[in-house]
């Protein structure tokens, strides 16, 4: 934690005019990090790593992609067949999207478990939610580009959601499409936006890291850094730990790329888009399925509010409610380790989300409709009732005096 020093005159000259070396020293080397972070804290940097992979592979794909309804499907197949290592680049990009969401979901649930969203990290949490929303938009736009059956029909279903809003709904949908159906203008603008949004995400990630470095990382104990003994410099301790994490992650990711590249995809998307033939079962990409289940959980019109509008509002509400979480959660204690009740409800909530995901991927029929409705009700019950009430009725376990206290105690015993 020495600050930046150099004997190199050129580096020193530049640093006095643009303190780029000082900044790197400050935020990537000296940055004080809690000494007790577990492997769940690897997922933020992993997500950043995948974002870089997505942008790089995406830029190369664009060199060979044609964003026209008459050429898009075949240009993707040309990438798969005739472009040197095109299949590798495309499979990296396709599976990278799923990996990005897996990592971010783990990152979000780690947040929920350790209460990382609480004061003073509310803005850090908000930026994270905005990143997640931007990822959802990017993923949706990208899935449309190969112009397969699921691209076309997924785009049709999702953009049609906006028609649920009274009066303004239909004009909004026409405006989004650039016409009266999903067609070439839709594809071109989706392509343009799909190229734009990752750079917006990149900017948001810079803000996210900036906010993080201002309030510092939370940790499994949920108590702040109090003494120098609580923290260690980011480099070399967390650089090497993150690198090891990247190695493990790459093996998981590339196992799909090389041996099951279409595992996360829908077979229907290898059929060219055909507006005259509707696939029997339209499903969005797996990472939207819980929200798709919430959307479909509403089946009865109430007065003039259609079931569709209720579903759309609930679906957006399910994500927007996360913004209020720092205040819905009334507990003073961050980490679930010291919250015996919340810890159990955390796992229930995780199971609830998995159930929603399962229901979202199945046709809405029979018992699954009821299951989806109960799971949707529980999703909102968790945030609106459990989180405020638990903080009041729960008796947390005693917190350690500091991050280093339990470590030192262990040493004393040994």
């Amino acid at each position, binding site marked *: 934690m020495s600050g930046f020093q150099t004997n190199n005159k050129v580096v020193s000259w530049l640093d006095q005019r643009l303190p780029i070396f000082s900044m790197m020293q400050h935020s990537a080397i000296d940055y004080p990090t809690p000494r007790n972070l577990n492997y769940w804290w690897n997922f933020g940097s992993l997500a950043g790593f995948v974002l870089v992979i997505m942008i790089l592979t995406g830029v190369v794909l664009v060199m060979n992609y044609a964003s026209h309804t008459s050429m898009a499907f075949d240009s993707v197949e040309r990438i798969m067949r005739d472009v040197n290592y095109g299949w590798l680049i495309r499979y990296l990009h396709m599976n990278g999207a799923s990996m990005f969401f897996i990592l971010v979901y783990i990152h979000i649930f780690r947040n929920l478990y350790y209460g990382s969203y609480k004061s003073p990290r509310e803005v850090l949490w908000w930026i994270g939610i905005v990143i997640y929303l931007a990822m959802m938009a990017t993923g949706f736009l990208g899935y449309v580009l190969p112009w397969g059956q699921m691209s076309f029909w997924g785009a049709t279903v999702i953009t049609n959601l906006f028609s649920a809003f009274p009066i303004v709904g239909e004009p909004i949908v026409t405006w989004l499409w650039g016409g009266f159906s999903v067609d070439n203008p839709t594809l071109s603008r989706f392509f343009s936006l799909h190229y734009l949004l990752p750079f917006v995400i990149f900017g948001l990630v810079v803000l996210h890291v900036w906010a993080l470095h201002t309030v510092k990382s939370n940790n499994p104990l949920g108590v702040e850094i109090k003494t120098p003994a609580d923290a260690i410099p980011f480099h*070399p301790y967390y650089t090497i730990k993150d690198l090891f994490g990247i190695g493990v992650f790459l093996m998981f990711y590339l196992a799909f790329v090389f041996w099951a590249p*279409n595992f996360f995809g829908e077979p229907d998307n290898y059929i060219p888009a055909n507006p005259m033939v509707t696939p*029997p079962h339209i499903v969005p990409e*797996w990472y939207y399925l819980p929200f798709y289940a919430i959307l479909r959980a509403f089946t009865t019109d109430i007065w003039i509010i259609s079931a569709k509008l209720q579903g759309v509002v609930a679906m957006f509400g399910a994500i927007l409610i996360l913004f209020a979480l720092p205040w819905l959660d009334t507990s003073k204690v961050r980490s679930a380790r010291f919250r015996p009740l919340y810890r159990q409800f955390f796992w229930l909530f995780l199971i609830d989300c*998995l159930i929603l995901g399962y229901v979202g991927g199945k046709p809405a029929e029979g018992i699954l409709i009821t299951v989806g409705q109960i799971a949707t009700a529980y999703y909102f019950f968790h945030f609106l009732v459990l989180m405020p009430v638990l903080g009041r009725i729960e008796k947390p376990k005693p917190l350690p005096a500091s991050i280093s206290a339990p470590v030192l105690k262990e040493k004393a015993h040994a």
Partner: protein
Amino acid sequence: MRKLVLSAIVAAGLTAVGGTAQASGGGEPLMKPGFSWEGVFGRYDKGELKRGFEVFHQVCSNCHGLRLVAYRNLAAVGLDQEEIKTVAAERELPDAPNDEGMVSPRPGRPSDKYIDPFPNEKAAASANGGAAPPDLSLMAKARVGGPNYVYSLMLGFVENPPADHPIPEGKYFNTYFPGNAISMPPQLMEDLVTYADGTKATPEQMAKDITAFLNWAAEPELDERKSMGLKVMIFLLVFTAMLYALKRQIWKNIH
């Protein structure tokens, strides 16, 4: 390590959700004969691909297109340059306009994509009882079950459909086709083709060979992909183990 295992379980749980979304479809559970290219070390069987091409060329290609595969690609299934030229020249397509602006047909070349059997979809539909035979370039990955579906469909015809399941005129009963009523008549009769390598052409043999060929048509990069995967994975195992050792070394005074 326990935590890594946990994270793997969570990831697997999330992926399982994705997987279940594909488990819909029609009819009976598919037959799974086991294919040479399955698994970590799986590779295409060259003999199988060649026989599969013979079935495709002599039978399927009379009605079905293969528009994403170029004739030159057939080198990968074991055809030599002369054979490729011969196959390509069997069909014609409109040439570029000559100096007088006249367009005349020319025979296909190895650089051409497989020329469709019908000039357009309307013609294909009208010649086939109203249903255009689908292009087969991506069939092996455009259906739930992939190659298992193709294999099962080829062998799934039933001569006498169940009495409670009437099949419309001009359609055929297939156990594995969604809705069971398929427009394609049964194809794989005993000794339908004569294989160049002398293999006996039983329906099962032909179904397996044509499935192999169509899987190659859909995933021509598979052999290269899996062999690159092995090298990458061995590298990553060693590299990650070294990173782990380094991590332990750097952290040893912290714990």
